[in-house]
């Protein structure tokens, strides 16, 4: 037999009319695809528009048939997917929702100077955070964060009061505008935009006010950023007299220089050096209503703090993905004498204007993948007049100054989204016989065991 005229339909080579089978083949493919779309409905409904357009354009289905097909897919999508019930503005380019839950077992010792007791306790705590961040056209952004606990320096809620329910608080609400790669502006209660260690700035504290960042790219390996913030620390009634009649402001400015160096096996520049000198200046005003771990509800007088944090990262030191980090911070309060003697009332004490931190870390992976781990150890010393106790880490020495000691932290990723963390703090006093609540701690220890699950 010679090739059959109405032979196999799986190939076109047997047909004597080469055009028709190709068209039939294409038609059958497209129609099969359309049928598959109808069956697969939900998964492909939102992606099917271009395919339906092609079917209509090629005359395989009419406009009305295309519309009916589109309508059926939309109905299926709307009925069977959560996304089909969301109505987001077309000006949104990205809307990210996420958060985490942290379960914590905490053991702590807090011994006051000249005290006869050593306050020891165990707490079972949790932290819930829920964030929404929207990116919009023309560089605009906006977002929010909800979290447990009202204290600025902690989102922890201790389990207590016989199964009572707990409050949620607004931890962030901000608007941002990034007109180009070089400028970024933000206003409202926002993430800390400054490069800091937790010696100077507790990572839980979200500042409020306006911030500006200007970025300069210097070749391929260097970046210089200028960051500034005009941050409101407290709102006072202007009818008050003197400092009580002024709002409390923190004016912070910083230059952040990043240099990339070295190359990995495939030629990427992976090591980095960061140096970030800055200056934090407060106006002279009163503070009240703070509920930090160790709040100082007094004044912002006597705080003009020079800071110099930084770090060096070396990648792939012990195999691909491993890294070693050396990090540090230094703070010096130019008005420490005034802060110690007049504000804290420690008339005969030295000003202790400096604080410093040196740490080293080792990690494997980015901390986002199952099996990643990291270990960090730092030693720090905080002079009584060195920095603002309302901003420094609330866990290290319970947020107090006149302390020195270390922090040891380890983290292990159980999955890509869950990690186990263990952190231990141990501090002792630098000078004895201090009478201010911010500096009269004899020694402290905290052990925190955390399970963190991100969603």
């Amino acid at each position: 037999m010679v090739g059959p005229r109405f032979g196999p339909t799986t190939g076109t080579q047997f047909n004597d009319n080469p055009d028709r089978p190709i068209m039939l083949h294409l038609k059958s493919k497209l129609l099969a695809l359309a049928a598959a779309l109808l069956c697969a409905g939900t998964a492909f409904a939102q992606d099917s528009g271009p395919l339906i357009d092609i079917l209509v354009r090629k005359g395989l289905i009419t406009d009305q048939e295309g519309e009916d097909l589109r309508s059926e897919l939309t109905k299926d999508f709307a009925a069977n997917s959560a996304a089909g019930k969301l109505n987001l503005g077309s000006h949104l380019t990205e809307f990210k929702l996420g958060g985490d839950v942290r379960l914590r077992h905490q053991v702590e010792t807090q011994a006051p100077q000249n005290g006869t007791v050593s306050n020891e306790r165990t707490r079972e705590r949790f932290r819930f955070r829920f964030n929404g961040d929207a990116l919009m056209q023309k560089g605009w952004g906006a977002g929010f964060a909800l979290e447990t606990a009202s204290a600025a320096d902690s989102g922890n809620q201790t389990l207590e009061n016989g199964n009572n329910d707990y409050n949620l608080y607004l931890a962030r609400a901000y608007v941002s505008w990034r007109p180009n790669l070089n400028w970024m502006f933000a206003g409202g209660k926002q993430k800390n935009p400054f490069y800091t260690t937790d010696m100077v700035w507790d990572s839980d504290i979200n500042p409020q006010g306006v911030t500006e960042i200007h970025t300069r790219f210097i070749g391929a390996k260097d970046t210089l950023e200028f960051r500034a913030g005009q941050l409101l620390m407290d709102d006072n009634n202007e009818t008050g007299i003197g400092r009580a009649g002024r709002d409390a402001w923190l004016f912070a400015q910083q230059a952040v220089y990043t240099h990339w160096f070295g190359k990995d096996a495939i030629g990427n520049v992976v090591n980095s050096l960061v140096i970030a000198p800055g200056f934090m200046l407060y106006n002279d005003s009163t503070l009240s209503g703070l509920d930090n771990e160790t709040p100082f509800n007094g004044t912002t007088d006597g705080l003009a703090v020079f800071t110099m944090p930084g770090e060096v990262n070396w990648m792939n030191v012990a195999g691909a993905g491993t890294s070693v980090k050396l990090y540090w911070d230094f703070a010096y309060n130019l008005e420490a004498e005034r802060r110690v003697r007049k504000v804290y009332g420690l008339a005969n004490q030295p000003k202790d204007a400096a604080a410093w931190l040196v740490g080293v870390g080792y990690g494997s992976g980015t901390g986002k993948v199952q099996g990643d781990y990291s270990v960090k150890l730092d030693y720090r010393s905080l002079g009584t007049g060195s920095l603002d106790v309302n901003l420094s880490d609330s866990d290290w020495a319970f947020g107090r100054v006149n302390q020195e000691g270390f922090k040891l932290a380890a983290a292990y990723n159980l999955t890509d989204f869950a990690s186990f963390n263990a952190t231990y703090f141990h501090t002792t006093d630098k000078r004895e016989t201090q009478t201010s609540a911010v500096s009269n701690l004899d020694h402290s220890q905290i052990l925190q065991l955390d399970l963190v699950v991100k969603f």
Partner: protein
Amino acid sequence: MKKTILLLAALGAVTAATAQKLVIKGSDTLGAKLVPMLAEDYKARHAGVTFEIAAEGSTTGISAIIDGTAQIGMSSRRAKPTEVSAATAKGVSMKPIIVAFDGIGVIVNQGNPLAALTRRQVEQIFAGDITDWSQVGGTPGKISIYTRNTSSGTYADFKELAMKKRDYASSSQKMAGNEQIAAEVAKNPNGIGYVGLAYLHDPGIKTVAIDGALPSEESVIAKKYPYARPTFYYTNGEPTGEAAKFVEFTLSDEGQKVVRKVGFVPVRVLN
């Protein structure tokens, strides 16, 4: 006498009972001219049918079908998934029926030597990325952009069809209607704007081909011209009764000639 009055009253009651009222709500694009003209023609053929037409935007037309307050909803856009979801929750099945195509032509001043643009260039011009005619091969001169005002459905449609939903350039000037855009572009040698197909032959302007296609009935129906969109009637399931008859009339040759007459593109090539 009493008998006569009673008879007249009975006749009146019968007439009222047989009179059909068709409630149509929705898109001002369709409801401004097209549907009222179709309704007039339909009434001329079907005595006793009355219409209540409210043209307050496509959203109101789709809502009216969901709420059951109209038999036909006019819309110049497709129902959103959230609207379909709301309809399904109320037991309403949104049925779209394409009744016409609406084409948007890009126009420049008659004296502008430019004859064609790509879709990418149109997007860049209206978004403000391209600000001078020399950047698209024209005679140097700062481009003046004319758009409809923000309340117009065409303002949003053009953004979707031609600009990937980007915002218009901040320098663009907002005009009240097609006539105003055509008039301004006719006066301004550096002007560019967009108008409905019915306005492409206004004096002083010329139409620019987009990706090689000029807007026309043929190019829209053949899907060769990119800036065209279907317009819809929405009903709850397959239309029935008087609504079905009116839909049928709209799609008939007579109805589609009305579509052409008011500047829309018929859903098929007419004899």
